[in-house]
């Protein structure tokens, strides 16, 4: 794992790295580096398989983090390539030419987070939602409760227990339940 990261360091600028397990490591790169890095990895390293493409919404930082999970199918190792893009007008280069299955991930991310991948087919085509006309629902600034109240009438009489208040009142400062309680 160390050697592959050293190889990457020699060719690309890596912002940070973190070796989580012997078979799993993460590296952070700038958004512009992602596609050259992935192309190089697919062509010259055993990490040829795109397992997953996921998004984390860092609302407070005003950024989205995209994580490309690459796997070496014979060595049973995985490398996560992370990058952060600004939240406003979020756009990212598409990798669908390297891995055709990326089209589906990019379509879903486009629908759920509103990140645009220019050139990727099926952008804007509904993936799970039908007739959605609000903020992309997985963004953290999308208020699900308000949306629920606006669209899905509840049955009156439902009582709601706020977990934070409930835990504080019942379990006290300790934070756990004792036999004497």
């Amino acid at each position, binding site marked *: 794992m160390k050697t592959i990261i050293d190889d990457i360091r020699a060719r690309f600028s890596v912002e940070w790295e973190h070796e989580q397990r012997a078979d799993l490591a993460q590296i952070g790169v700038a958004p512009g580096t992602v596609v050259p890095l992935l192309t190089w990895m697919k062509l010259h390293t055993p990490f040829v398989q795109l397992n997953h493409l996921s998004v984390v919404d860092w609302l407070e930082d005003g950024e989205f983090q995209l994580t490309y999970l690459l796997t070496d199918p014979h060595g049973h190792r995985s490398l996560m390539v992370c990058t952060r893009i600004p939240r406003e007008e979020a756009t990212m280069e598409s990798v669908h030419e390297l891995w055709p299955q990326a089209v589906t991930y990019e379509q879903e991310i486009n629908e759920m987070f509103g990140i645009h991948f220019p050139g990727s087919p099926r952008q804007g085509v509904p993936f799970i939602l039908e007739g959605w006309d609000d903020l992309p629902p997985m963004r953290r600034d999308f208020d699900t409760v308000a949306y*629920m*109240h606006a669209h899905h009438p509840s049955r009156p009489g439902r009582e709601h227990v706020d977990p934070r208040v409930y835990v504080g009142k019942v379990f006290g400062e300790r934070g756990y339940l004792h036999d004497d309680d």
Partner: protein
Amino acid sequence: MEKRKLPVLPVAAPPEGSRPHAPLGEGCFLGEEELPKAPALKEALATIKNWFRAQSLWVMAYGTGCGAIELRPLTTARFDMERFGMAMRPTPRQSNVLIVSGYLATKSLKRVIRAYEQMPSPKWIVGLGSCTINGGMYWDSYNTINRLDLYLPVDVYIAGCMPRPEALIEGFKYLMERVKKGEANGWHHYLENLDWYKANQKKLITDWNLPDYNW
């Protein structure tokens, strides 16, 4: 040790301008629906028909949510719903009971409406799990409905999250009893109040591309 009373907080009021909550019972099917009066002979015939219907409930094999996992054991040796004459039918044309099993996404609601309207009358809906009653644990989700009875007439609710197969059998037996007595007439309520139901459905489903009634 005395039983502690749990602190219960009211739900926050819905934001301004949002759709007001429909009060319980306004327009919904609450389990009571009078069929139009028929001649005595027809009434007697209906009694016989109901007797047949109650003992041969065919269930639409369509699971909308996680509750469908509790339906599978019903066909196995342990619970065996076939002893009550119930069978799974894979096509709405031959089904009499539609089970909305658990949470219902707005996207599934479209398919459920379509399947329900294609079933031959009389037909019944069983709402399975608390999700169909008040949203259950998915009450604040953006894509699951909270009250099934706003969109379709529910004849029997089976509460729980999830109800065990025994509870399901109990619910089905209750449904059979009501069918035998001719009390479960949600399908008639649906036809009589079609405008109300359609308005509710169309309010929720923004890209309405179904026909007005799926024959």
